[in-house]
């Protein structure tokens, strides 16, 4: 049946800057904020915005992501008409199908899918941002402006602008120029990687782009400049609120810490804009007789007997008596044994930190030098008394004693 707007969520990225955390899963499936995975944010935004048809474009390590999405029930996206669709690359007539060559090519290869719903508008999203946004309001703006393309933008500090794709706009917020990571930015309006296109327009540009052998088939590099060059009406939609790209270890850690702070702008307790997730069935968490927990998030199946400060614990984490966890993110099933210390670290699923081990350290005062967040990969065991320094990434079991 015809839909007014269909969302296409680009979830095929490898997320290589998350290193060990994405060695087995696509970036959108990385656990976030105690109960979620990154993709829960755009998916929940869709359903909260009244968009009930979402295509999720997968390519890299899709199995866990596919299983997580399932029939879309946790997001109320199990629909008899519409709902969530996983869209991997596929073989086409005469073996002409390919891997998704770029973001625009991924949509190009699914023109057939979009035609099933024959939408007026297509919303392009990516699966690596944490934010709450009403796409319905953006769509209303797009219609009001009569634009071919509306790009959601965020005002960033001028000194950071050179790290983003910057939109230069006229006084009516019509975009006249796009600069990818400009050395000398003319404005501070950063693209959030959220686009609404009038579908008939986008389809033409996708087909033209595919015919151009020199194109990298990317929205930012190719489609947007082509549309600007052709004089299409492109408008900037100013978003005010929390938005964070969690593509790096540091930004992922930062965004998790933001979940703990009321003032950060990302409020998971706001009942008017819930974030949904597929949660495992776990009993309530237990805090032991000597537990000390402050400024932290704890969820189902956890057992805390030690000290937890400024940290985010996912389900079924065990912090034994005498263990200390500070400024860290412990993903599902992590065990921190007696006397172990975890500081400024991200510990991935089912890792075990044995007795008396030390993982990570607080940043030095003054010059940070090569200090950074420590990462322990999935299923890794850090042996008794082992010491893992700051900024390390542990992807092999560590014998008791000292670090590599």
């Amino acid at each position: 049946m015809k839909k007014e707007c269909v969302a296409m969520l680009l979830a095929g990225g490898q997320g290589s800057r998350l290193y060990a955390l994405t060695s087995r899963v696509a970036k959108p499936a990385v656990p976030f904020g105690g109960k979620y995975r990154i993709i829960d944010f755009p998916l929940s935004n869709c359903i909260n915005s009244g968009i009930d048809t979402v295509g999720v474009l997968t390519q890299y390590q899709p199995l866990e992501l596919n299983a997580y999405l399932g029939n879309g029930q946790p997001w109320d996206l199990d629909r008899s008409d519409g709902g969530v669709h996983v869209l991997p690359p596929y073989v086409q007539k005469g073996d002409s199908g390919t891997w998704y060559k770029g973001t625009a090519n991924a949509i190009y290869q699914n023109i057939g899918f979009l035609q099933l719903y024959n939408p007026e508008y297509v919303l392009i999203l990516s699966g690596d941002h944490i934010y709450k946004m009403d796409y319905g309001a953006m769509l209303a703006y797009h219609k009001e402006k009569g634009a071919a393309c509306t790009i959601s933008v965020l005002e960033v500090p001028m000194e950071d602008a050179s790290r983003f794709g910057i939109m230069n706009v006229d006084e009516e917020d019509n975009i006249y120029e796009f600069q990818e990571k400009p050395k000398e930015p003319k404005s501070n309006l950063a693209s959030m990687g959220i686009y609404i296109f009038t579908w008939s327009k986008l389809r033409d540009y996708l087909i033209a782009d595919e015919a151009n052998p020199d194109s990298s088939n990317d929205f930012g590099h190719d489609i947007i400049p082509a549309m600007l060059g052709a004089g299409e009406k492109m408008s900037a939609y100013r978003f005010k609120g929390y938005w964070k790209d969690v593509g790096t270890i540091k930004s992922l850690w930062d965004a998790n810490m933001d979940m703990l702070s009321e003032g950060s702008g990302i409020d998971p307790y706001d009942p008017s804009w819930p974030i949904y997730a597929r949660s495992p069935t776990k009993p309530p968490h237990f805090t032991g007789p000597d537990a000390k927990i402050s400024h932290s998030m704890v969820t189902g199946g956890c057992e805390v007997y030690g000290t937890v400060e400024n940290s985010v614990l996912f389900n079924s984490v065990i912090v034994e008596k005498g263990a200390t966890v500070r400024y860290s993110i412990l993903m599902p099933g992590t065990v921190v044994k007696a006397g172990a210390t975890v500081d400024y670290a991200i510990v991935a699923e089912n890792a075990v930190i044995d007795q008396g081990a030390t993982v990570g350290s607080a940043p030095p005062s003054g010059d940070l030098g090569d200090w950074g967040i420590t990462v322990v990969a999935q299923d890794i065991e850090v042996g008794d008394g082992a010491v893992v320094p700051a900024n390390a990434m542990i992807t092999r079991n560590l014998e008791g004693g000292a670090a590599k």
Partner: protein
Amino acid sequence: MMNKLHGIIFAYRSNADLRELTQHRNTCSVPYGGRYRIIDFMLSNFVNAGIVDVGIIVHANYQSLLDHLGSGKDWDLSRKHGGLRILPPFGYANKQRGGVCRGRMDALEGVYSYLKNIKQEHVVLAGGDIAVNLPLRDIYKQHIKSGADITAVCTRNPKGDPKSSDYFTIGANGRVTDVSVHPFAPMGCEALEVYILSKSLLLSLVDHCAAHNIPSFSQGVLQANVHSLNIVPYIFDGYAARLQSVPGYFARSMELLKPEVRADLFVPDRPVKTKDQSNPSTYYGDDASSVNSLVADGCIIEGTVRNSILFRGVRVEKGAVVENCILMQSTTIQQGAVLKYTITDKNVHVNPGRMLMGHETYPLAIAKNETV
């Protein structure tokens, strides 16, 4: 194999001694264990044993239960065919006693046409007001292997109030040789009120009891036929909680703070499923303290919590102290309030600085939606 078993839950019992807790609901939908309704345990037992068709017999005060169960989606029981079926009371025009429910046989008579349409060969009958995690798959296997007419699950660690429990005497032949119904003191193994029997036996028993005006399963079926039917016990000594009074509710809840009790009730292979509410994690503030407590998701704790059970979405503000309490869903304890030995039902609001104190033997219970 397990789709040869059909599940029936009796979900109409209402214990007057639960006072405020059953003002808005029957015993089966009393909140328990931080995020569950009692019926979740039996329903999950069924689902974890692979049962796909479940009938739930309700009688009065069941709006809360309907709201909780919904379509059965959270237990994977929302199916094209079968799945969860709520069986409310209805009378037959040509029957004199239609709709009356004096006991389980009356309740079964009231849903006779449903029973006749059961596709499975065997039926498990169980109460929806007991919190227990049963290996129902094994119980069914034993039922088939033993050739029993009725398999009766019972425990050697009596938990319930004898005056409202049944007890089995087990003979040297391993069969139930006597059934004591509601004695003054426990005698033998206490029934956990879970029975497996064949559909055909069930139908003939229901027919017989209806024709002879026998309303009670314990007396009319078990006791009356203890020598003519082969009733075989299945002994389950793990944790089981029956909630029959406010002090009993309080004691059974506090037992959940013991790791061995939680290990019995929350078995990883047999998870207890409940209605999903999509809560975020629980947040502990800078000055929060939570010791020896069971805390569900979606809480915001900024005060002190000791020896307590907090359901989903509870708020404990700064300076508030909660000790030996059970705070049900969305309770708010404002700044500086002190609560000891208190049970607050859903959406209770305790204003700043209030002091509420019950005792272990007489916990204070605050009814749903009240403001103190």
